[in-house]
């Protein structure tokens, strides 16, 4: 699917629950699921799918390439990691970053990927990373991932470094998990099933960014009759499931330096709505920027429910298509 220069891909991380929990679910099964969704481009995360990492066995790379070729699909991007905490008790130095970057670039090149996703490269090593990217013929994207937001100082410093270095090889991979505006329905359902009052949950969500500290919120909700279930929800909503108004202004600053997107999502309703992530606003900003490239759907709802990844991905792809077709039409109207 290519809508006005924007293509859809799928991160195989979307099938993580299947891969982790079903002993017989293999990379081939993940690619079958990809094909069934009529998508050709994918991202493969090495530390998920390979038995050896940071460097897979040659036979493992060969297997991915053979399984892809026979299905007519393509590894578009390779998901790497900076596992610089590998040596116990050792604080990572430049050599540790260079080693992991080199290992991932090699693998990305062997897979024929145009892009390598990295989790973190210190700013002073970015010039070297740009040189390495030229060597290997692979573009390096640094993922902008929750709890970071595009406007965060360290992200903006990376952006400045990219501009300064001037290499087209370096860029961002914004992950839409940065733009969660409220907890996904399954996360709320879980708290309700644990006994939380839906109205109190809505109160917490509505007032998450009203200036209350976590302690003050706990006290307020206790006063309103909340108990243990609400206490757990507050801890989560102030912690790793944090949400808030989407940083759209920050997002637009990254677009000219974006390689592709992790179109992260947790749940799309039957009506093709995602109440968690402001997809229309995000996609419209992307279209307005003139971006041409890949939107990589990345399902992460398996953290909260017994997932049906293929069903959710099908909905998400259609949701994106609807928005993009609408935007494309508007864009067409505007540019007439």
């Amino acid at each position, binding site marked *: 699917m290519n809508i006005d220069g924007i293509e859809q891909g799928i991160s195989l*991380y979307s099938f*993580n*629950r299947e*891969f*982790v*929990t079903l*002993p017989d679910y293999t990379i081939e099964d993940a690619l079958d699921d990809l094909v069934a969704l009529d998508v050709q481009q994918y991202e493969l*995360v090495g*530390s*998920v799918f*390979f*038995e*050896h*990492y940071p460097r897979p066995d040659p036979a493992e790379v060969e297997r991915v390439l053979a399984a892809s070729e026979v299905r007519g699909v393509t590894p578009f991007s390779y998901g790497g*990691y*900076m*596992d*610089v*905490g*590998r*040596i*116990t*008790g050792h*604080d*990572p130095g430049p050599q540790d970053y260079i080693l992991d970057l080199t290992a991932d670039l090699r693998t990305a090149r062997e897979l024929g990927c145009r892009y390598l996703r990295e*989790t*973190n490269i210190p700013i002073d090593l970015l010039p070297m990373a740009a040189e390495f990217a030229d060597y290997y013929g692979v573009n390096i994207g640094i993922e902008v991932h929750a709890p970071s937001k595009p406007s965060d100082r360290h992200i903006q410093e990376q952006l400045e470094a990219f501009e300064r270095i001037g290499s087209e090889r370096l860029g961002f991979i914004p992950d839409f998990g940065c733009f969660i505006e409220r907890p996904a329905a399954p996360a709320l359902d879980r708290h309700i099933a644990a006994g939380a009052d839906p109205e109190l949950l809505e109160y917490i969500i509505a007032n998450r960014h009203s200036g209350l500290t976590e302690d003050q919120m706990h006290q307020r909700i206790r006063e309103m009759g909340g108990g243990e279930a609400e206490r757990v929800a507050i801890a989560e909503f102030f*912690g*790793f499931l944090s949400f808030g108004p989407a940083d759209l202004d920050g997002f637009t600053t990254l677009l000219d330096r974006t390689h592709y997107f992790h179109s992260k999502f947790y749940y799309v309703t039957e009506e093709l709505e995602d109440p968690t992530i402001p997809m229309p606003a995000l996609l419209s900003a992307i279209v307005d920027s003139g971006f041409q490239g890949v939107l990589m759907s990345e399902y992460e709802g*398996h*953290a909260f429910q017994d997932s049906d990844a293929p069903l959710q991905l099908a909905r998400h792809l259609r949701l994106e298509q609807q928005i993009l077709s609408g935007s494309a039409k508007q864009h067409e109207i505007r540019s007439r």
Partner: protein
Amino acid sequence: MPTSYMKLPYEDRVLRPEALRSYDLETGPVGYSLDIGLNYYRGLPLSAVESLELTVDAEPVPEHLILVELNGKLFPTSQLSAAFTEFWPIKKDLRIYVFNGGIEDGPHQVDLRLILRCVYMQFAPGVWGMIDNSASRTLTLQGER
């Protein structure tokens, strides 16, 4: 900075029903083996093991009776944290051998406390994200593999 351990919802695969097996050699049972699955979304280096404590039927298993096997290699628990070039992938188990002379047939209460370092998530010098790969389960001793 995290105040608690990450725990993913794949706990059921840490101690699976068939995980506890008699380990028999020339003289008969010399102990037992226990297969341990990873409760995480990706593989980790073996050196990520920050601590591994096994309790069977409420008795802590002494470290000197334990050997750990991964990728065909054997480790005393004291060497795990140094084994940074071994990768523990999603689809492979750690196999623990306990040389205690064998245990009785039937069900046993197995409590595993296994803490892993999240090697790509550094919060401050020496401070890393932590993953709780612990699990408890009543397992029935299986015959020799």
